[in-house]
């Protein structure tokens, strides 16, 4: 962490040197389609940023750019001032970029507890050699159990992850992401597919985590949840950033409204 902050001081080239994440003029191309078109935004420490936009706007691609799953074709992403361009997904995760998937992806052959234990022990796993010479798991198990309690699925700890209902799996995704002690947590539609009660519970859980100091980017379609949770919104449409600011002001912006409703209105 100290090393990261030092690097941040040395290499910071941004307008906002305090930014935890800085997305700088990022473009991503899929064949002939420009999925992300010259998008820039920053994320301050402790912020809960909502990334919204119509289907196909490029929100998930944007998160994949930050995690490194789909590196940017142009532009760059910085974490505390450090350029992540040359780093793969695993290296970025070890620096503290955590992701929860839109479609849940637990390790189905492991128990719920082991899913989280493995992530807690990610520093044992830096190289296969260190992993080979370490066998003790008690400490990591204890921490994993705390995390399961924090997201409210400790009762499922010993169940095989594949047998959980969707609501619990969504929370498992969050617990596993928290286990790598993230600097920033990227949440790709964590509430999608949940019923109202489940969504409210997980929303409250995310709110608590954010108040506890965890910085987040949230992709979400449920606007009432977005308004409750997010302190700022960035809106993407057809790969371009069309708005960035306080939630209510952004949602009242005619450009944003027309992006959601349709092109004709935009040109009217």
């Amino acid at each position, binding site marked *: 962490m100290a090393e990261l902050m030092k690097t941040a001081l040395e290499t910071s080239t941004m307008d906002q040197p305090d930014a935890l994440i800085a997305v700088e003029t990022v473009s991503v191309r899929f064949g002939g389609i420009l999925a992300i078109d010259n998008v820039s935004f920053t994320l301050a420490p402790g912020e809960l940023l909502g990334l919204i936009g119509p289907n196909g706007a490029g929100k998930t691609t944007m998160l994949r750019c930050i995690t490194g799953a789909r590196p940017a074709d142009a532009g760059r992403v910085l974490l505390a001032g450090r350029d992540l361009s040359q780093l793969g997904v*695993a290296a970025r995760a070890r620096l503290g970029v955590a*992701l929860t*998937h839109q479609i849940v*992806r637990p390790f*189905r052959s492991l128990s719920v507890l082991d899913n989280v234990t*493995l992530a807690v022990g990610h520093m044992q796993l830096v*190289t296969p050699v*260190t*992993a080979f010479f370490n*066998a003790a798991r008690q400490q990591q198990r204890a921490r994993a159990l705390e995390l399961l309690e924090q997201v409210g699925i400790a009762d499922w700890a010993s169940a095989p992850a594949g047998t959980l209902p969707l609501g619990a799996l969504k929370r498992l995704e969050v617990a596993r992401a928290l286990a790598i002690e993230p600097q920033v947590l990227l949440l790709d539609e964590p509430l999608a597919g949940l019923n109202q009660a489940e969504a409210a519970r997980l929303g409250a859980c995310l709110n608590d985590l954010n108040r506890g100091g965890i910085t987040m980017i949230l992709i979400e379609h449920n606007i009432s949840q977005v308004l409750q949770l997010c302190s700022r919104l960035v809106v993407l449409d057809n790969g371009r950033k069309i708005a960035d600011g306080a939630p209510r002001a952004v949602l009242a912006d005619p450009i944003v409204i027309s992006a959601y409703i349709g092109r004709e209105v935009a040109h009217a």
Partner: protein
Amino acid sequence: MSSYEISLLGLVAINLLFASSLNLITGFCGQVSLGHAAFFGAGAYAGALLLKVGLPIWLAWLPAAMVAGLFGLIVGFASLRVRNDFLAITTMGVGFVFVGFVRKQHWLGAEMGVSGIPAHGLGTLGFALLCLLAALLAIGLSLYTRRSWLGFAFTAVADDEDTAQTIGIDVARYKLAAFTMGTALAGVAGAEYAQYTRFIVPDAFGFTVSISVLAMVIIGGVGSVWGVAVATIILTLMPELFRFINDYKLLIYGALLVGTMRFSPGGIAGLTERLWRMRSGGPGQRAPSLSGAAGKAQKWQNS
């Protein structure tokens, strides 16, 4: 025990090591290999050449492991970008390339292979016990790996590579580690095989051998250390003890593979676990002796 039976013990021990080595790659780390005989062959040729210059078998182990392990590392690097069916086809290709290459190398005896490998002087029993020791060490290594963070990470890589990356696991490194460990052990088994038969030809390391060893892993239960050991013992002894089976060896192996896939994808380990659960009543019970295998077998059943 007759000399023939002791000699069979040696063959079982060699196959135990060979099958355990593939289980590390395919069972633990989920990387299907249809060309494992190539690494067995690389170790056998390295071992044969060293044995011919007078090295005792236990000194030939290490160089054979290094040759096969290095070969495995290179194949691993070349295979990093391919997954699942594509990896299976790639490794199958490696198997064919190996046999095709060796056949044309005069310094390796070309089609005639390497003959005149000197006797080990350990006696049939001594050699069998030495091979058994190596097999037990490999089984011990597998059991330890399963308990370590390395085995934990292998399970994650086998389960979902992309998700493993998101929690900081460098998947490429782990695949290479599995390939190197597994192929190095296959190399040791190969060197033992060269000493055992004292005569090797390229065809002894062909596709049929790769499939036979894969059959041992699948019928035993992919990822189960004990299941694979049991299947290896049965499949090695069956054609030797009942000669008529030897004539139909491939047919029987094939039928067993089909039967396993259809009725117990978890192999012997999965079947044992199911029976254990039925006896102890209730699906919540897990067979304690199969803790590592259980999840893997379950995964194969689900997939």
